[in-house]
């Protein structure tokens, strides 16, 4: 079959990456189309398109501010139709529900000049430009929450030092979740207000802990995101330390939960020393660490679920749930013995590794916790794979799986067909920023599986008040024969029980 490559360039036409992905997917699904992509003409994107065989003659004149429309089709006619489809999608009016005449500032400077009371910049532009935008925000006395990643460590350090100088919070880069004074920002959930403050270097870690607390009848004062690298040596916990100061001084906060992957030892020491000076009780959850030397006002939680329980002063969560009893009700697939974890949330993936490893399983991951081999290492051979699909290698040129669940689809289909897999472990993350129906999407992918397919075990990270409604999502999954546990930790326990029983 011959293959026709067609390119079109729209000069000076910019659309954000997620909007482009959606259109790309629509076009790729058009009849006769093998591959399609709409991307800004940055060198990185051009390389991606070239490698995908999407550039005519392997090259392009497009610049960084130009949009490249590329299609590879089985015929010229199919290609032209697909391009026309793309043009139509691009020319659709941009915003619904907003008057087409509404003025939109083109810069932070203009926004601040014309509107009073702005106090926080939420930045999600491509990494190459994110630091410059953050600087503009900080210099105008705005706090910053930066969802963008692929920002250099040097830039992160410099931004956090600038923020500290000005007394401002620099949440990120790579910060997906925050709840400030009841306002859910980016990927966050509608949780009850109360006295528990959270400092999170991890998005889904913060989401799981705040949701479990809220569903169990507790409440959150604030959840401050610090970004995935804040507790690394090069950054030294700048934002974490500022967050501790802020929550200590906040009258609404009675106790604090700190969630992160294990910090660099020097940084851990500094942070814990600061916590020792606090009048409030702290729960320390370093996911993947076995323990830590803690001051008297701090307690250690090995999992997110345990962190939530300790924050609620020992009140058990999902008390009535018996993973062992639940496991006995389901037969394991003949000849299969492995657990495969397919996660959209990085910290949920880490929690799974913690629980499975301490349950005696040999696991490997692309986002491995300490003492777990990396997927690519030779020791990983034969181990159970617990995969973080939101990790960099999966999100180059694709949106995060929490925004676009289809990133997980191929891996799911492959796991369903894998004769060695007995149980597939998944997370379904809802709330603001997430897909409008992640459970529905998941069900669509797996519903045609045969009776002899692996068991699917999952949990819904979210609350009843979230737009997707937690119980509705859980029911959708259960109706499709997916086993739903009340938390990720419980789901992992169930998976363990399923593969070790009988």
């Amino acid at each position: 079959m011959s293959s026709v490559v067609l390119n079109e360039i729209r000069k000076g036409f910019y659309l954000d990456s997620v909007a482009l992905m959606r259109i790309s997917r629509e076009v790729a699904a058009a009849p006769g189309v093998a591959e399609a992509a709409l991307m800004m003409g940055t060198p990185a994107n051009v390389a991606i398109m070239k490698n995908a065989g999407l550039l005519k003659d392997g090259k392009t004149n497009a610049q960084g501010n130009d949009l490249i429309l590329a299609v590879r089709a089985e015929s010229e006619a199919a290609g032209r139709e697909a391009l026309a489809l793309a043009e139509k999608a691009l020319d659709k009016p941009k915003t619904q529900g907003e008057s087409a005449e509404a003025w939109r500032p083109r810069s932070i400077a203009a926004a601040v000049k014309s509107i009073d009371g702005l106090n926080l910049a939420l930045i999600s532009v491509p990494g190459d430009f994110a630091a410059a935008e953050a600087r503009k925000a900080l210099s105008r006395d705005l706090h910053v929450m930066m969802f963008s990643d692929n920002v250099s460590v040097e830039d992160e350090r410099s931004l956090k030092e600038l923020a500290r100088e000005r007394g401002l919070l620099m949440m990120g880069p790579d910060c997906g979740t925050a709840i400030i004074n009841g306002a859910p920002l980016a990927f966050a959930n509608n949780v009850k207000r109360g006295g528990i403050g959270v400092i999170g270097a991890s998005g889904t870690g913060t989401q799981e802990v705040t949701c479990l607390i809220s569903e169990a009848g507790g409440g959150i004062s604030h959840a401050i995101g610090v970004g995935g690298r804040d507790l690394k040596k090069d950054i030294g916990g700048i934002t974490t330390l500022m967050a501790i100061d802020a929550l200590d001084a906040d009258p609404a906060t009675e106790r604090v939960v700190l969630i992160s992957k294990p910090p660099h030892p020097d940084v851990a020491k500094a942070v814990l020393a600061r916590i020792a000076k606090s009048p409030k009780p702290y729960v320390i959850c370093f996911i993947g660490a076995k323990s830590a030397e803690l001051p008297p006002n701090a307690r250690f939680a090995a999992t997110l679920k345990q962190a939530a329980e300790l924050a609620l002063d020992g009140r058990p969560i999902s008390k009535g749930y018996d993973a062992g009893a639940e496991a006995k009700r389901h037969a394991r697939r003949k000849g299969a013995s492995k657990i495969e974890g397919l996660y959209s949330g990085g910290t949920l993936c880490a929690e799974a590794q913690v629980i499975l490893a301490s349950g005696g399983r040999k696991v490997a991951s692309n986002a491995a916790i300490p003492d777990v081999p990396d997927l690519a290492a030779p020791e990983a051979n034969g181990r159970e794979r617990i995969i973080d699909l939101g990790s960099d290698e999966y999100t180059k040129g694709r949106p995060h799986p929490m925004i676009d669940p289809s990133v997980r689809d191929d891996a799911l289909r492959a796991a369903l067909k894998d004769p060695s897999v007995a149980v597939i472990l998944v997370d379904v993350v809802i709330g603001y920023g997430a897909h409008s129906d992640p459970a529905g999407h998941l069900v669509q992918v797996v519903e045609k599986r045969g009776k002899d397919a692996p068991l699917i075990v999952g949990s819904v990270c979210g609350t009843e008040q979230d737009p997707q409604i937690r119980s509705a999502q859980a029911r959708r999954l259960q109706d499709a024969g997916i086993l739903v546990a009340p938390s990720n930790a419980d789901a992992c326990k169930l998976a363990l029980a399923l593969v070790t029983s009988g």
Partner: protein
Amino acid sequence: MSDEKKSPVQKLLSTEVKVVNVGLEGFVKDLKHCNIGVVHVDWSPPAGGDPAMAALLAKLGV
């Protein structure tokens, strides 16, 4: 504590958050749904996406 004595972070934790959104437009509808004041910046790469010019402008203090 009176407002003047509060640090900028303490002020943030005790006032209404008002957001300027720079980047993914998808965040705007969720913020509006929660009645959070938000203005979306119609952002495109500075200097037409030319990194050398953007760097020069940054040095000239823009």
